[in-house]
Each structure stands twice: as structure tokens, then as C-alpha cells.
């Protein structure tokens, strides 16, 4: 399958990556309003920086990296809103009970585990790619992933992933 081309306009990048950036931010900050603020900030950063990308994968990785940095800054600030939960944040979206409980369980993990879980399972990055994206050793990513799975196994009373 041919790889998607790099976006050339604001409309295009927003259309293609709005959901990705928003859900990445939501996975980390656990709050819809904060996630929207961060995602908007990421897209405005894109306009300010006007980075040149080699490929669509590079483009997506840049946006996710900026999102992760913004979320890190967010957690150091005093302006975090209260976490409300999936059903309250998305009242019009029909989630199953299993979906709600597993997302709540993941949301109770520390932020560093949540971002690794998100990038590994939702975005489908390999541990080496996550390490490059977050600027940390691959072994750290592997150990964080393993600890996150162990914590989820306890919380959910079952394996999160049977790898």
C-alpha cells in the first residue's frame, strides 16, 4: 500500500490528525477539555514551526512528540481540570461496559505508563519507535510496558494483552 503524502495545508493536517492528536492528549490528561486545549496548541505549534517532513509517518511522529511534550508541561502546571471519566466526557458516544472499565483502569495508571500503552496499542508503534519518539531508552519503554500490563492485570483481574 502506498504511503500517504505529507500534508500541505492546515485543513489537510487537521482533518487527518485531529482525532489522533486529540486522543493521544486525552489518553494522557484524561479530560476532554484539557485534551482539546492541548490538541489545539499542537496544531498552532505546527503552523508556527512549519516543519519539513520526510514522510507522513515523520509528520505523525512529530505531532505525537509535540503532544507528549505539551502534556508533560501540562502536568507541571497548576491548571489541570478534574478528571471526569469516559462517559461524562463523551456523553453522546455509546461505550460498552467493558470499554468503559478498561479505559478507567488504564486512566488510573501513572501518566508515563499511559503514554506508552497508548502509543503501543492505539498507534501501533514498536517499542524502538516509542523510545525514539519519547527520547528514552528502549529498555525503559519495555519495562514501562511490562509494569503497565502487570498493573492492569491486577486491576482488571485478567491479562490486558496475552503477548
Amino acid at each position: 500500500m502506498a504511503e500517504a503524502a505529507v500534508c500541505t495545508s492546515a485543513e489537510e493536517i487537521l482533518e487527518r490528525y485531529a482525532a489522533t492528536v486529540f486522543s493521544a492528549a486525552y489518553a494522557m490528561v484524561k479530560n476532554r477539555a484539557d485534551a482539546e486545549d492541548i490538541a489545539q496548541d499542537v496544531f498552532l505549534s505546527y503552523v508556527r514551526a512549519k516543519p519539513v517532513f520526510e514522510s507522513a509517518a515523520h509528520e505523525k511522529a512529530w505531532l505525537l512528540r509535540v503532544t507528549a511534550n505539551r502534556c508533560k508541561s501540562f502536568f507541571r502546571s497548576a491548571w489541570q481540570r478534574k478528571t471526569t471519566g469516559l462517559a461524562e466526557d463523551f456523553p453522546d458516544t455509546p461505550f460498552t461496559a467493558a470499554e468503559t472499565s478498561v479505559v478507567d483502569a488504564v486512566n488510573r495508571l501513572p501518566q508515563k505508563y499511559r503514554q506508552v500503552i497508548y502509543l503501543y496499542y492505539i498507534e501501533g508503534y514498536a517499542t524502538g519507535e516509542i523510545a525514539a519518539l519519547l527520547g528514552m531508552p528502549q529498555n525503559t519503554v519495555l519495562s514501562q510496558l511490562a509494569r503497565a500490563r502487570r498493573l492492569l492485570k491486577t486491576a482488571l483481574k485478567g491479562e490486558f494483552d496475552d503477548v
Partner: protein
Amino acid sequence: MYKDDYVSAFGKLAPREAWKADTLAKMRALEARRADPFASDAAVPEAPDRRAVPFAARVRRAALPVAALVMLAILPVTTLRGCGAGGGNSSMNAAAYDGAAPQTVLEADNGSYSLADAPEAAPHDAVVGAYDTAAPAGEAAPRNAVSCDSAPCAAAAESFAGAGGTREKSEFASGEKPFGTLAAADLSVASVRFEISDQAALIEDYEELAALLNDVAVCEQGDPDAEHDGEGFVFTLTFTDGTQTEVRVYPAFLVIDGAGYRAEAEACDALSRYALRLLEAPPARP
């Protein structure tokens, strides 16, 4: 497996359409302003910068245009008299001053120096040229500097040359000191805050700030969004002519008005320690 539920739940998440429309509008506005920096559209989202400056600083900032307008009425006459008393070396005649003053008044009428938007208009002035539309006092100073021997005229010209030379540039070469010529007298208001949070402090000792900024040397340019880690300190500097510069300080990295530079770690650390000291014990506000 639970991971399937997790993946399917995130597959349902999407931002609101209203958010997308709002974001797109802001992106377009920002693009338009970057394409045409002289456009008068002030609706581009620079809200964090406005929020960073405390109310007292805004009042002090507004005082500058008012003082400039008052000086506009007085300075041409007094300067003309001063040049005449100095021996009549000035080639500027009364007609030339008459020509200069209405032009500046017209700019003031256009809103450049109104109370509400003077700081936002100021960066445009800096790009156009330090003397073309700078504060009314600066309007007279360079002209006098050519032909007037009086000490106040020369001093004014030197001061504006030092400050304008720093702020006209938007990019700096490796090894350059962006604030190498900055003097405490060039600053009218300075504040510092933590990035994102609203914890801010007004800076009152411009000498120390200027000395620290003088030492900052930049290396090559870097991505202002991706090449630094952690929270930085944001210095908002308002100069005596109303122009404003924002300097974000990170470990070994600086962002000057949105442009990122790798920088000497020692100078950045010194600025960070200075910011932290001010924020932990903010000085008494006037």
C-alpha cells in the same frame, strides 16, 4: 482480551466539530499573520502572552503611549529651540518639524498608539524600522542626530540605535548575542512567569536582567516545540519604544519571539535561577 476493548474505545473518541472549526480558524489566522506581519489583525491567538502580563504592567505599558503623545506636542518645539541655542548648526528648519509632527499625529489617530492596542502595534513598528513609526520621541531623535550637536539629541539617538539594533532582527547567527547591546535603560516593563501557569512576577531590577541577557549567546536554530524538555520560564520584555519581545528559557535552549535556538547552558541556567528567585519571592508591586 482487554486490549481490544481499549482499542475500540479509543476508536470512538473524536474532537467536537466546533473544536475543529475553531482550531482551523485559529490556524488560518496565524498563517495569515505570519504571511503578512503588517496586517492589523489582532485576533490571532497570542492569549498566553497577554495573560502573562499582570494588570499593573498593562497600566504601565499604557502610560508610555500617553506620555509619547504628550511629548509629541512638546518635543518638536523644545528640540528646535535647543538646536538653535546650540549654535544653529542644525539643518532642520521649522518647516521640517511642522512636516514631521502631523505625520506622527496621523499615526496616532490611526490607532498605533491608542491605549488599547499600543503593545500589539509595536512589533509591526519594529519590523518597519526603528525610526519610521517608532515612538514619537524617536521620530525626532534620529533626524536631530544628523544635524544637531546638542547632548540630549545625541544621547537619544544612541539609545535608540542600541535598542533598535537588537530588536529589528528576527534571526540570529550561531555565536551571536541577541541581547548583547541591551541596556537597562532600554526596558520599560519586564515580567517573568512559569510557562503555562499564571504565576508571574514583575521585574524591577533591570540592571541584573540586562546583564544576564547580555551574556546569552545562541548557537544554531532548533525546533522550538520539540528540542527542549520540561517547563521553561517566560520573560516578557517591553522596551521604552513600546516594542515587546518574549524570551522563553529552557535548559540550554531559548525561544525568542517564537524562534528556537540552542544556547549556552550556563547563561540559560543563570536566567532560570534568576527567574526562580523572582517567582519564589516576587518583589512588591507598585
